């Protein structure tokens, strides 16, 4: 038995190590092990990360709030009187009840229903019933200080209308966390005040990381999604780019429409059955009617930020997708669709019509839910095997000027393993001969 094999089988998670330093194999165990899941909640979602909470546009007024999940931690994010944003862990400091029960709302203060402990929108304790007792009896000790019993607060920063929170004690700045690639592409899309168009929610029977692998993987996109390939909203033969952050966890994948030609597409898709169907035509072509918001020709762009955010621009559809884990083998995906405040009715209508392409019922999105469900289903009984992630080759995890690569997926696993303290002991350790089976 190889040493890596031994480490790989290790049941003590403090000794569990990734099988290779190229992150070209992912142990299936990480998708189904409940101990690993608990560790993720602590080390990833409550660890050195910034998690996406909400759009500023969802909180239009002072006191507006939204309830979200950051990993398995319930969080409420609010807009303050001064226009800033705050967030707290939604669990009463007294006996642990959920304080804010509504998904959305507006309130100056939040009273826990259980014993009426009352908090400001920022989470400070502002009222305690019977603090000094009733008729001189009962009450809290004299040294009880409300300031010491507020809700646990998150660090909050926002950029271009996206609000992020962090539960670590001393996080670096959000901008340092996001890095230049993410900044550049958020700058590209989020150019004006946003207008929320509504929500899609999807509950997929798959581990949350399978979804992150999926959206960081441009290799599958031109192959799984016949609609994208046939109509050219995304094709592997198009001019495209794959950008990855220094830590590996964030990425950007995009392609430029109209940069390939029929002959080239036919050549590269000739061995892929039924995915590029030149005889497939829509009865109503207005579905794909596209009035570009930007003049760079990008028809499909997916930004992902470790560990819970996806930002999409697919034709005119703009959305954030928030990934909420629901245990080792399930996840909730919340899509928030938006346009710009100054959109005219025609442009709004284009965005709404194109929602047929995306979301749980979308022509080019429904397959992702199915693909990752199939993975979750097939790995259930597996204890040792790994996946194989080497499209685009091994070596440094860096940008590529094409989309025939799984480099972003390797980048994701690199940041994941390092955050989870699962990284190989020695960088550059030899890759195992083959997947363990």
């Amino acid at each position: 038995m190889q040493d890596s094999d031994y480490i790989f089988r290790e049941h003590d998670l403090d000794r569990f190590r990734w099988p290779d330093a190229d992150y070209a194999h992912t142990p299936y165990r990480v998708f189904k092990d409940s101990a690993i899941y608990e560790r993720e909640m602590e080390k990833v979602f409550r660890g050195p990360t910034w998690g996406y909470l909400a759009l500023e546009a969802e909180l239009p007024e002072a006191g507006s709030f939204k309830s979200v999940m950051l990993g398995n931690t319930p969080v409420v994010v609010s807009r303050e009187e001064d226009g800033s944003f705050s967030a707290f862990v939604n669990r009463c400091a007294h006996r642990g009840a959920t304080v804010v029960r509504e998904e959305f709302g507006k309130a100056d203060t939040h009273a826990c229903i259980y014993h009426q402990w009352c908090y400001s929108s920022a989470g400070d304790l502002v009222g305690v019933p019977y603090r000094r007792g009733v008729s001189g009896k009962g009450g809290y000790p004299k040294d009880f200080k409300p300031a010491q019993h507020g809700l646990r607060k998150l660090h909050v920063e926002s950029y271009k209308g996206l609000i992020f929170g962090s539960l670590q004690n001393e996080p670096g700045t959000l901008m340092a966390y996001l890095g230049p690639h993410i900044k550049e592409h958020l700058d590209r899309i989020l150019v004006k005040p946003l207008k929320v168009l509504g929500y899609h929610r999807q509950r997929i029977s798959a581990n949350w990381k399978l979804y992150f692998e999926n959206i960081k993987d441009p290799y599958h996109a031109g192959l799984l999604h016949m609609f994208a390939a046939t109509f050219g909203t995304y094709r592997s033969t198009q001019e495209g780019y794959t950008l990855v952050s220094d830590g590996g966890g964030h990425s950007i994948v995009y392609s430029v429409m109209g940069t390939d030609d029929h002959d080239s597409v036919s050549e590269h898709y000739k061995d892929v059955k039924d995915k590029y169907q030149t005889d497939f035509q829509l009865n109503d072509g207005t579905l794909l009617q596209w009035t570009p918001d930007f003049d760079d020709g990008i028809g499909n762009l997916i930004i992902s930020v470790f560990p819970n955010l996806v930002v999409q621009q697919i034709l005119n559809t703009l959305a954030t997708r928030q990934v909420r884990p629901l245990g080792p083998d399930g996840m909730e995906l919340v899509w928030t669709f938006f346009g710009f405040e100054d959109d005219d009715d025609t442009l709004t209508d284009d965005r709404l019509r194109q929602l047929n392409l995306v979301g749980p019922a979308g022509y080019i999105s429904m397959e992702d839910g199915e693909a990752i469900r199939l993975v979750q289903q097939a790995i259930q009984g597996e204890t040792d095997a790994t996946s194989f992630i080497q499209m685009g080759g091994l070596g440094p995890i860096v940008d590529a000027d094409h989309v025939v690569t799984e480099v972003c997926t390797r980048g994701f696993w690199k940041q994941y393993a390092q955050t989870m303290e699962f990284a190989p002991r020695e960088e550059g350790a030899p890759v195992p001969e083959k997947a363990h089976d």
Partner: protein
Amino acid sequence: MTSPIDGDLYQRVQDLYQNYGHAIDVDDLEAWPEFFTADARYCVIPRENHDRGLPAALIDCRGRPMLLDRVVALRTANIYNIHFDRHLVSPAVITGRDGDVLESRVNFTVMQTDQSGVTRLFAAGVSYDRIRVEEQRLRFLDRRLVLDTYGVPELLATPL
């Protein structure tokens, strides 16, 4: 208050709803667009959007050609979880009439069964509809299905 339509017409409305569900349940998707007028609107909207006045829908087909496209896509393009549907649709309530157009409402549930014969509640909701009375058959001019089960289990492929 009496119903704005007579018993025979009401019966045709009931049959419309039941036959609509049955066509989907037996995977006769090709028959589905025929339940609509040429210029019909078919919209599945999450209840949270509907209740908050947000316009984003899950499916929004405008005209029969877009309905046809969805059928063709399901048959030839899209890949989704293999399953069977079964609609349970309440008796219809006729809420209004304007000439040959009826306003109608039904509650619905859809049960979905996987290949091992395990059935789960897939969707519950209400549909606010307009129906055109034609000589030969009734057709939907407008279906607005408000989906309570907006935490869509896996994905929404076959129409509700």
